[in-house]
């Protein structure tokens, strides 16, 4: 039996789930997904994805060994051995394998990384369906083998029992759904309120910005502990290289668009993102969830192609428009996950050009306090966290985002700042235009 590459609407191969006989349980509850060798960033994204996209139909199980579905990162340090052991179990749970490389593993579904939200959701839905079917079949088989109760009491008792069971089941489902829904609503409300306006006549109420930010902070900023920044290994853990993420390409595209005062697109098989320097807007043709997931995963060489455009095409319904600044800020938060850009010296003083327009950017805890401190006093990233008595990850996240929109830099950066070379672009278009661009870029 071979693992099947799940491809759009193609059905999931049935065999891998039919081997599994689920315990007699209620599968209307959220299904528990066990994560094996999945890094913290992806785990955060998955938690968010399960509650946002899947409406709480799936949850991450804190003990992966007692989960309904297994998700294994084969490219992780132990991924392959975990899968080998898991596959040997006679009735192992349905398994999804994540890998950059096509994988032929018996009895599991392979999904290529970077993970596509839509595909993952489809696969999960199919597994749920299959588990439900198996569960019902199993129950039917079991019920025929049960001894019948005594002739007098049997019909009434079993009828009552069935009624009771149905009521309990309905209650449990409702409770589970409600619980998930509340988590989901809390997260969603937090996100929405920062981006959209309430109706003009909303009743006045007390607001806690910090608590509002807290709800989304974990997803953006993670939960990394403070590091000893004099220790090289720990310092490296607190840094990320924007060039290894989509944000690196985005920053190149913005720079290119500004240099030539023309729209620049980033194309990939995931969709197109176009930057319009004239209106300082970005047109996004990638689903929001997928974009978050792409932003958090290291990119492959040549995965994203930059090209100068003569005009832009705004497809209503497919394209979202956002201010470039808000887009870059948010994407940086997704990529950095509470880390600072590589080569940042955390012991150098930070200079802030001016306050960011925080009402139009993704807010998170301590952002206003960090800005207030930097606008009045000279502090490094290290001393900022100490003086404000806050976890370092908030300072790093804020610095990364403010640095990406050109508002913050360390004094060393400023002293050594030179004109960066124009980013290399690949162009797929008319040869004449290509020549013109090469000429503009002085690459010919």
């Amino acid at each position, binding site marked *: 039996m071979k693992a099947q590459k799940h491809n759009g609407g193609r059905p999931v191969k049935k065999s891998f789930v039919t081997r599994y006989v689920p315990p007699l349980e209620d599968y209307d509850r959220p299904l528990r997904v066990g994560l094996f060798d999945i890094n913290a960033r992806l785990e955060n994204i998955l938690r968010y994805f399960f509650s946002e996209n899947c409406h709480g139909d799936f949850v991450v199980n804190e003990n992966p060994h007692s989960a309904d579905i297994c998700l294994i990162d084969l490219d992780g340090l132990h991924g392959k051995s975990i899968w080998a052991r898991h596959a040997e179990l006679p009735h192992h749970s349905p398994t999804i394998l994540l890998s950059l490389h096509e994988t032929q593993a018996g009895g599991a579904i392979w999904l290529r990384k970077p993970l596509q939200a839509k595909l993952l959701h489809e696969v999960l839905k199919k597994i749920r369906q299959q588990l439900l079917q198996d569960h019902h079949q199993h129950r039917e088989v079991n019920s025929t083998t049960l001894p019948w109760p005594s002739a007098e009491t049997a019909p009434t008792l079993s009828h009552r029992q069935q009624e009771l069971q149905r009521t309990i089941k309905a209650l449990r489902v409702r409770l589970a759904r409600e619980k998930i829904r509340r988590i989901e609503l809390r997260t969603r409300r937090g996100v929405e309120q920062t981006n959209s306006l*309430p109706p003009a006549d909303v009743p006045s109420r007390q607001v806690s910005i910090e608590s509002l930010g807290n709800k989304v902070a974990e997803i953006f900023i993670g939960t990394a502990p403070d590091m000893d920044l004099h220790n090289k290994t720990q310092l490296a853990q607190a840094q990320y290289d924007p060039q290894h993420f989509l944000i690196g390409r985005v920053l190149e595209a913005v720079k290119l668009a500004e240099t030539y005062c023309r729209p620049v697109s980033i194309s990939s098989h995931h969709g197109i993102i176009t930057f319009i320097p004239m209106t300082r807007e970005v047109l996004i043709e990638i689903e929001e969830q997928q974009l978050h997931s792409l932003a958090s995963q290291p990119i492959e060489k040549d995965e994203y192609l930059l090209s100068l455009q003569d005009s832009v095409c705004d497809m209503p319904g497919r394209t979202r428009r956002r201010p470039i600044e808000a887009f870059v800020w948010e994407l940086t938060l997704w990529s950095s996950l509470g880390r600072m850009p590589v080569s940042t010296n955390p012991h150098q003083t930070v200079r802030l050009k001016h306050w960011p327009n925080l*009402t139009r950017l993704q807010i998170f805890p301590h952002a*206003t306090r960090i800005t207030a401190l930097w606008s*009045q006093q000279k502090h490094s990233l290290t001393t900022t966290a100490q003086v404000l008595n806050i976890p370092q990850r908030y300072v790093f996240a804020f610095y990364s985002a403010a640095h990406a929109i050109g508002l913050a830099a360390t004094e060393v950066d400023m002293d050594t700042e030179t004109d960066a070379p124009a980013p290399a672009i690949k162009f797929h278009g008319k040869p004449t235009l290509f020549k013109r661009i090469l000429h503009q870029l002085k690459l010919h």
Partner: protein
Amino acid sequence: MDSYKILIAGPVGAGKTTAISSVSKIPPLTTEALATDITREYKETTTVAMDYGLMTLSGIGTLHLYGTPGEVRFDFMWDILSKGGVGLVLLIDSSRTDPFSDLHFFLRSFKKFITKNRVAIGITKMDLCTTPSVDEYQAQLRNILPNIPVFSVDARNHIDVALLIEALIFSLDPKLAA
């Protein structure tokens, strides 16, 4: 927990009364009356004495918000209301004819207060008029009041208003405990 008096000023119709209503945890006290003919171009009524609202910032304290009248004929109230204030929220209506001159006019009018206290600026109605941009306001302020919060704000949105007020409070002291 401390309490702070915050002043909210700005031209007619900038959204001072609305902003206080958006964040006040008590029904705000307002003194609306029929506006003068000039003001009536913008709206029917105007604040003639003051607005008052109450807000709490968790871990920081209680904020007493005092809204000033926008009409210049009531400018005597600006000084009266300023007493005991620790910070000024200046709302500038970006849809008015010359928002930069409004900005400079109010900064001049509150100069004495600003030299001793902190200020944060909210640009309202940017949904109706997107220029000048927030960056351009920052550029106007670079040489006179560098490093102050300037946000685009919809006075009807309590998050926008609360964030601006929070920025003002942390400008007083970034180390205030949350």
